[in-house]
């Protein structure tokens, strides 16, 4: 494809397209991602690193990774944390994006539940219908309470 066509596609994708769609995964209830009891504070889980959000074969090929939404939790202690979103099987190079967030202590039950949205731009093109997964590390001690993120994708960019 020549540059003229590519620029034209860019224009169509960003300004004039009626084809671009935003989706979030998983389509149903979000998957809980918690810290690993074996991991120290601020350290990612050492084994079975990522929690699967959707299996391979689910997202459209290609898709454009456009961010995350995070629902915070009523933690036992205030914490600063990172969420990493990975694509493909566990292993080196899986992470495409890392988001820092914090989670304060709730003044009353459920009062600390709020959604943080990270809308990324530029998007990251994801070639192949890869597994999407996540993992967290946080400054407080490991616990069964983490976050329930959803991952934002765009489709039909460039058409």
């Amino acid at each position, binding site marked *: 494809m020549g540059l003229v066509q590519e620029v034209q596609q860019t224009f169509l994708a960003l300004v004039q397209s009626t084809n671009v769609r935003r989706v979030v995964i998983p389509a149903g209830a979000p998957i809980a991602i918690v810290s690993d009891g074996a991991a120290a504070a*601020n350290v990612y889980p050492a084994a079975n690193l990522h929690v699967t959000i959707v299996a391979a074969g689910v997202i459209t090929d290609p898709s454009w990774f456009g961010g995350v939404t995070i629902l915070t939790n009523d933690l036992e202690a205030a914490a600063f944390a990172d969420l990493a979103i990975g694509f493909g099987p566990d292993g080196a190079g899986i992470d495409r994006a890392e*988001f820092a967030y914090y989670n304060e202590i709730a003044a009353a039950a459920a009062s600390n539940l709020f959604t943080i949205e990270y809308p990324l731009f530029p998007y*990251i093109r994801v070639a192949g219908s890869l597994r999407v997964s996540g993992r967290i590390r946080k400054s407080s001690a490991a616990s069964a309470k983490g976050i329930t993120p959803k991952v934002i994708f765009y489709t039909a960019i460039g058409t």
Partner: protein
Amino acid sequence: MFQMIARLFTALINSTALRYGTFPTAADGVAAVAITIPAAAVAWTFGAWTQIVAAAGVTVEQQIVGFTLENFVGALSQGEVEIGSGAGGAEAALGRFQSTAGQYLLPSPIRVPAATRLAARYRTATGVADTVDVKLIVLTGF
């Protein structure tokens, strides 16, 4: 012009190489602790610049695209954090943001060459010594 358009297209639409990360960060198995930045005990007076990442830690060109910060300990008040670059004692501000808590993505990223030390400083309206915890969100691979 040709290269600029080609790079823009690649960066915006076609690249699978873009990566979002955080500073400070760490390899698997190593703690990645947010940086605690002090405010002076005088209202609207910055505390000392505090290093977020050493120059050696910025191994490739980066774009600062956002940050997360939270004042876990201080009283509710107005505050400002300033992100800067440069050697210790010679920092220059890249941007000032009025906030003590939140996650922010910048509409215009701030480009940072490789081997650039990054730091931040903090001040509040209270006149009481205070701190804020900070991490930067950065983009590479463009």
